[in-house]
């Protein structure tokens, strides 16, 4: 598992990367009440804002961590946004992206580095 400074977790399986937000991020956001996901088939570039998360407190977004194509989205968190608080690093993944370029993964943090990052 790798982590971004935007508090996403990234799980690589071949050329498909599953993306969600960390437990730390979910706690900081507070109760999530709305999630807007990209459509399957969307081509995205690294750092595009592709997900909107609204909590009781504020709106925030998730950036595409890599170039690629959205191949799957987790509709269950759209129907039940509270799942993002209940199981952010498990059932409440956001989307899967098939990437053409895994190179940026090298720059993302390991779990130990992320733990240090969030202090």
């Amino acid at each position, binding site marked *: 598992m790798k982590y971004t400074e935007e508090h996403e977790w990234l799980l690589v399986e071949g050329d498909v990367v599953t993306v969600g937000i960390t437990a730390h991020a979910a706690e900081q956001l*507070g*109760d999530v*009440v*709305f999630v*807007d996901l990209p459509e399957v088939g969307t081509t995205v570039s690294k750092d595009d804002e592709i997900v*909107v998360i*609204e909590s*009781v*407190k*504020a*709106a925030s977004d998730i950036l595409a961590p890599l170039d690629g194509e959205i191949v799957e989205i987790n509709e269950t968190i759209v129907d039940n946004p*509270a799942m993002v*608080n209940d199981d952010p690093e498990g059932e409440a993944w956001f989307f899967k992206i098939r990437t053409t370029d895994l190179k940026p993964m090298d720059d993302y943090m390991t779990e130990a580095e992320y733990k240090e990052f969030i202090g």
Partner: protein
Amino acid sequence: MTDLQTTPLFALHHRLGAKMVPFAGYDMPVQYPLGVLKEHLHTRAQAGLFDVSHMGQVTVSGDSWQSVATAFERLVPQDILGLADGRQRYAFFTTDTGGIADDLMVARRGEDLFVVVNAACKEADIAHMRDRLPGFTITEHADRALIALQGPAAESVLSAMDPAAAAMRFMDVATLRLGGVEVWASRSGYTGEDGYELSLPADRAEGLAEALLAHPAVEAIGLGARDSLRLEAGLCLYGHDIDVTTTPVSAALEWAIQKVRRHGGARAGGFPGDARILAELDHGAPMRRVGLQPTGRAPMREGVALFTDEAGGEAIGRITSGGFGPSVEGPVAMGHVPVELSQPGTALFGELRGKRLPVTVTSLPFVAARFKR
């Protein structure tokens, strides 16, 4: 962020694990470990305890109630003289141009007027009262805390400590003895629920708060849930839904101006901005505060521009308060729109992240008030 003031419950908030934020110059709890959503729902189901000690508590006194009330009517468009002893009323200071300088609660306690004003406005309000009420004594109770207990269980919790709490009706004020402390209580609040606001000496506040929190029905509630509760109840937040640029009529607060202060009333006018406010009471104002319900699930927050069409055209108004309503289980908002577009059912669009999404004008409140009248 420096020089934030703290309330007498600051240590308790920390012990309870509150997340603190700066609000109106105070370090205040925005939420406790329960979280905004559950705190909101708990208040509607049982009872929530709110620290509102940041608000200003002021007594206006003079020779007699008659003189105090007569003088105070020069500052507000409300019927103050008609306030019976032990009764409270919602009021607002108006500006010379008919805007709202602050909204407040006024209560008659014997010969005195007890006033509770917003934290962000309290210095200006006190200066305004001292300036406009020469010869009267304006006492700020900086040595008193203010705790709100709101929700359907509030009555049983308080009446177990002092049975007189149950005898109070909505907007009554009385002195209660709670755990050996003399408390200035009012049966009111800002959540749409039945409840009380309790003013007591600062050094006794933590003891009372802990005694109330020891009750299984009571949870500590932060500013986050306070905001969603008042929004669902259709209540204005000063500085957002109302301010110096909104008039009482444009803010849909006509209900708070009694007949005796209107045209044809025995004490019509005589408050700042009276010409404009009285004219608008007769003929209406061009803009109006309304409830707005987004059709989708995305919350529309303060600042979202409103349009009549899905594309093109100028913004016709804006959202002044908005978010997710936990009891409504969906997004809720208030905003100001031209009066001709203020009828419930009017279809509008709110621009969110560059997209215009449908929103419907609705009557307020979103959640019916459950006051003990």
